[in-house]
Structures are given as C-alpha cells and as structure tokens.
C-alpha cells in the first residue's frame, strides 16, 4: 500500500509541467543521438550534465535518464532502415531488422522494436518499484566492510563481465582508483599528487574526466576517421506499420524472455545493454525450432534484443539509486549529477528524498509512453537526422563540451584536464582498453577508500573483518569466482574444441 502511495506521489511530481517538459526534451534528444552513429548516450549525458546544475534535482535526473533510454529507441530506427546501429546494443537489431526492411516489412520491424522496448522498459520499471525499496531496506544494515566488498565487486564485475580482456579491464579499474586519490586526503588533510597545483587540491573534476574520456575521445575518433553512412533508406507508411496476428503470436514470448534477461543483466554492474541484447538474441536462437532462420528477417530477432536492451537500461537504476553503486559510466555520471545537488544515492535516499526517487521512477514510464508516441509518426524525420554533416556536428559538439566543462567550476584548468583525458581516451580505445571501468574506478575510489579505512579502524586493524562479516564474505567469494572464471574457462574451451 505504501509503495502505491509513493508511486502516486511520483506520478504527481512527474506530471508537473516542468518535469514533463524536460522529460520530453530528454527523450527527444536521446532519440536524436540514438539515430546518429558515433554520438552515444554517454557523450550526450556528459554534455548535458552542466545544464542540470541550474535545475532542481528531479527535472535534472529525469532529463539525463530520458536521454539514456531515448537513445536506445532511436538507435533501433536506423538499425532497421539503414543497417546502421546508432549504438552498440542496436547492432543485434540490425541482424534481423534490416533483412525484414529489405523484405518490405520495415514498418512491422519498427513497430515490433518500439512495442518490445516499451514492454521491456515497463517490466524493468515494475521490478524497480518492487525491489528497490526492499534492497534499500536491506542495505541500510550494511557495515563499512560490506560496503567495501560490494563496491569492490562492482569494480571487478565492470572489468571482467564486459567485452574484452579481463586484465585490461582491471588495469583500467585500478587506474581509475589511482586517479581518485589525487587531491586532499579527507581523513588526514594531506595533499596527494597535487604537485603544487592549487586546482588539483579538490581532486580531478569528474565532469572534466568523464567528458574527456567519452565525449572528446569519441569526437577525436570521428574526426580522425569520419564514418560513411549509407543514406539509402526504406519507405515506411502507416499501413506497413500494422503487424499481423501471426506477428503478434511470434513476438510476445521472445519479448518477455528478452525483458527478463535484460532486467537481470541490467542490475549487474559492468554489464549494460550490449550484453543484454547479445544474450537475449543468443537465447532466442537457442530456444527456436528453426535457429538457421535467424539473420534472415525473423521478428523474434528484433523483439528479444530490443526488449532486453531497454529493460537493462531501466534496471541499471536499481543498484544506482538504492546502493549508490553505478553499474556503468552513464550511471556514474548520473550520480555525479546528484552529488552536485548534495544528494547521495544510496539506501537513505528512499527515506530522505522519496519525492526524487518515486518521481524519477514515474517519469520512466511517462518517458516510455512519450517515446512510443514520438517515434512512430516521426520515423522519416529521425532518418533525416542522418543528413547532418559531420563537419558541422563534431565541431559544434566540441564547443558544447568545452563550454559545459568550463561552466562547472569556471576554470580553464578543467578544460585542459578534459582535453588531456580526451587524448588518453582516444589512444586507450585504439588499443582496446575499455575506458568505462576507469570512470567507475574513479567514481567509487573515494567511497572504497573511506569504507576500507573505516572498517579497519573499527576492527582495530584486523583484516579478517572482511571475511568475518557474512555479507562481505559472500561478495568477496563472488569476486574470487569472477576472477577465476576466465582462467577456469580456458581448459574447458580447449576440451570443447578438442
């Protein structure tokens, strides 16, 4: 009953004209960047972060979240019509979505993607409503040792569950942790790695680092090698949007399975929508009686990854808002946005700021409805976005980023930090070093050190505190499994190949 009351409060707040307007702006902007290849949701959220400083916390968070899930919707349009995935998770939609368009079923593929995204998002929102308060209540009793272990788990998961080398991921996590030590040590008051630079005494600016690593690095990549986009699109009219009864009977089950997978994956740190979309597509192929038909225009191949993709995006808010632990860099930036308003996401947030939590939850659903209404009539308009010349787009984005970084602390030093990390991010990406774990390490570095220090202080320097506490011990056990998994899987793969 209390949850329902809270939800009503959330809808009341989310339906306020100001919140509704920023939600519309957020999802529209998200769809816009989702359509454009090379401009991800992360870059846009980093870019828009300074704009939210002038807003109150709820509209600010609603706008940033809207960009995140709006981008997932937008990227599916170009995946289906042009075979151009606007973002990495949409690559799975290309596999069957584009062949459907070539068969003259572009409208059905798009409507399937939209409905699946909506259903996936809705299921994840329901999970958020049901589980977030329970998780928050449980997390209130966490000790410092438990917090240290769960944060360590998030960091190890970010390094090992992502795509690519585990060692490279771990290097990036520890580099992020190391960068977080720059500035004044809060416990002792002494300076670390400031080299006499006064601007570094408060540490490296998170917006400057995030915009450099993701925004500027991505723009540099696109400036070095501008992407050639095929603009040959397939026509979509109203009549072609209507799926048949057979289509409905084919896609509702994959849609539910995709939603479940996406919701589960989204809650795990370090995974994200790409893995969710990939796993759900693989699952559909496995359970299908005709797996060979996938890749030739099967509706299940569109429904499952789209549902999983959007569900994982919404579910990622569960650990972020209830535990204060970001699962991916986008969540890390959202946390930064809240911290600037002196709001610390975590178990206390539900008690201290119920209006913010439930307002955001309600806005997700409103945003999903807006997207459904917004996307279908304006498909042609979204496709025409691809005609924006990169020669106009990237210089404009660079200027917006620079102005955004400068506006946080009104210092040029942050602009230099941003360009430095932009170059670092570019070279790291070239060598396949993932930069997302670096940002997570940087964001969690402070709390990890604080909880580690506090746990040892309380135990009088006894390191066994981390294995004596059952919750902490269980998280450490999962960390060991995650680290051993790649080593154990090598002989198994060898046996299978043999």
């Amino acid at each position, binding site marked *: 009953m209390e949850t329902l009351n809270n939800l009503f409060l959330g809808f009341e707040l989310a339906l306020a004209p100001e919140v509704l307007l920023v939600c519309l702006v957020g999802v529209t902007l998200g769809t816009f960047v989702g359509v454009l290849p090379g401009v991800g949701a992360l870059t846009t959220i980093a870019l828009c972060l300074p704009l939210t400083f002038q807003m109150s916390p709820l509209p600010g968070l609603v706008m940033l979240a809207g960009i995140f899930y709006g981008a997932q919707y937008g990227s599916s349009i170009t995946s289906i019509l042009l075979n151009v995935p606007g973002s990495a998770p949409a690559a799975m939609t290309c596999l069957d979505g584009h062949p459907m368009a070539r068969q003259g079923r572009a409208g059905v593929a798009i409507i399937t993607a939209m409905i699946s995204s909506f259903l996936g998002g809705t299921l994840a929102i329901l999970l958020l409503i049901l589980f977030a308060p329970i998780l928050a209540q449980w997390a209130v009793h966490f000790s410092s040792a438990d917090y240290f272990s769960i944060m360590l788990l998030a960091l190890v998961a970010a390094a090992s569950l992502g795509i690519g080398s585990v060692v490279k991921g771990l290097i990036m996590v520890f580099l992020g942790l190391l960068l977080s030590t720059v500035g004044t040590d809060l416990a002792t008051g002494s300076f670390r790695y400031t080299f006499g630079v006064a601007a570094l005494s408060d540490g490296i600016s998170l917006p400057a680092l995030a915009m450099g690593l993701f925004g500027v690095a991505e723009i540099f990549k696109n400036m070095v090698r501008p992407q050639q986009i095929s603009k040959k699109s397939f026509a979509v009219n109203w009549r072609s949007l209507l799926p048949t009864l057979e289509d409905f009977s084919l896609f509702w089950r994959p849609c539910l399975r995709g939603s479940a997978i996406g919701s589960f994956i989204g809650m795990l740190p370090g995974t994200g929508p790409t893995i969710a979309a990939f796993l759900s597509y693989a699952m559909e192929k496995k359970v299908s009686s005709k797996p060979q038909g996938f890749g030739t225009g099967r509706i299940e191949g569109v429904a499952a990854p789209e549902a999983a993709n959007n569900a994982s995006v919404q579910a990622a808010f569960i650990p972020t808002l209830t535990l204060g632990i970001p699962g991916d860099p986008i969540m890390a930036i959202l946390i930064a946005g809240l911290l600037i308003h002196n709001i610390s996401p975590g178990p206390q947030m539900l008690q201290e700021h119920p209006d913010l939590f439930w307002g955001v939850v309600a806005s997700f659903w409103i945003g999903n409805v807006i997207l459904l209404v917004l996307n279908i009539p304006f498909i042609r308009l979204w496709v025409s976005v691809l005609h924006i010349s990169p*020669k*106009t787009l990237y*210089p404009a984005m*660079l*200027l917006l980023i*620079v102005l955004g970084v400068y506006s946080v602390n009104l210092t040029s030093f942050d602009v230099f930090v941003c360009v430095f990390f932009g170059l670092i991010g570019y070279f790291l990406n070239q060598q396949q070093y993932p930069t997302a774990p670096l940002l997570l390490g940087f964001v969690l570095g402070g709390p990890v050190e604080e909880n580690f220090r506090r746990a040892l202080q309380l135990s009088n320097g006894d390191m066994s505190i981390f294995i004596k506490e059952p919750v902490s011990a269980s998280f450490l056990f999962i960390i060991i499994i995650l680290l051993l998994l790649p080593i154990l899987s090598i002989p198994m793969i060898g046996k299978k190949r043999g």
Partner: protein
Amino acid sequence: MNAILFLSTKRQLFVPLCLFIFTLALLVIASNYTLGKLSSLGAGFFPCFICSILILLTLLQLKIQSIEPTPKTTEPTRNESKPKSNFPVALIYAPCGIVLWGLLVDGTGFFIASSILLLFSNTAMNSSRNTRNELLILLAKNLGILIFCFILFIKILGLPL
C-alpha cells in the same frame, strides 16, 4: 637497441609500458606520504597499495602481449575504397583548438575563443579543402553554432563570459 627494435614490432606493448612507468613514478611519490598503521591508515597507504597492484597488472599485461602476435592491419582490397583518415591532423588541430580556447577565454571573451576553437576543429576535419560556396555555408553554420551557444550558456544559463 634490441629493445627498441622489439618495441617497434610490438606496438601493443606501448600502453602497458607507459602505464608501468607512470605507475612506478607515482609509487615513488606515494612512498613519501605517511603510510600509517592498519588501525589508522595514513594518506600514502591507499595510493601505494593501488600502485603496487597496478604495477603487477601492467607487468602481467606486458607478458601477455609480448607473446601475442602483433595484430595485422587489414589493407583494403583493390575494389574497396580506402576510408579517408585525418590522422594525425585531427589529433593536432582539435586538441590545440581546445587548449587555445582555455588560454584565451578569460582574456578575449567567448566569441573570439570559440571562433578559434571552431576554426581549428574545421581544419581538423579537412574542411579547408571545400569549395568557396561550401566554405561560406560552413561559415554561416559556425556563426549559427556560436549564436546558439551564446544564447544557451550565456543568456539562459548565465555563464559569466
């Protein structure tokens, strides 16, 4: 000499090697901070601990990558057109434009600093090779971007520039 030759054939070793040297330097600096005891950790404990793990990880990565073959860059076939690359021009002009913006913004103000940034970014994207008409359109677009940013950041958000 042999080490340089080995490194030139193993380009993938560059990042872990740089990270190794960087972390080692930071470890030396961190060793000057107070380490403290386990019950009351000093400012240097956490950086030293992280640096040590990072050094081990970079050494492991160096070991892994030194035995891995250098990834071959796939050359496009005759029928494929080679994608146009602005390397290293883009990586020189665009960062220089940002640095200049940072250096000039407090002294010269928003319009001059931002115009220079846009000019450098356009050069980074090889826009100078355009025809006269295209350059005029680009100029008009840049003016539009400047006005948009001026309205958004200075008029609406009140950025003191």
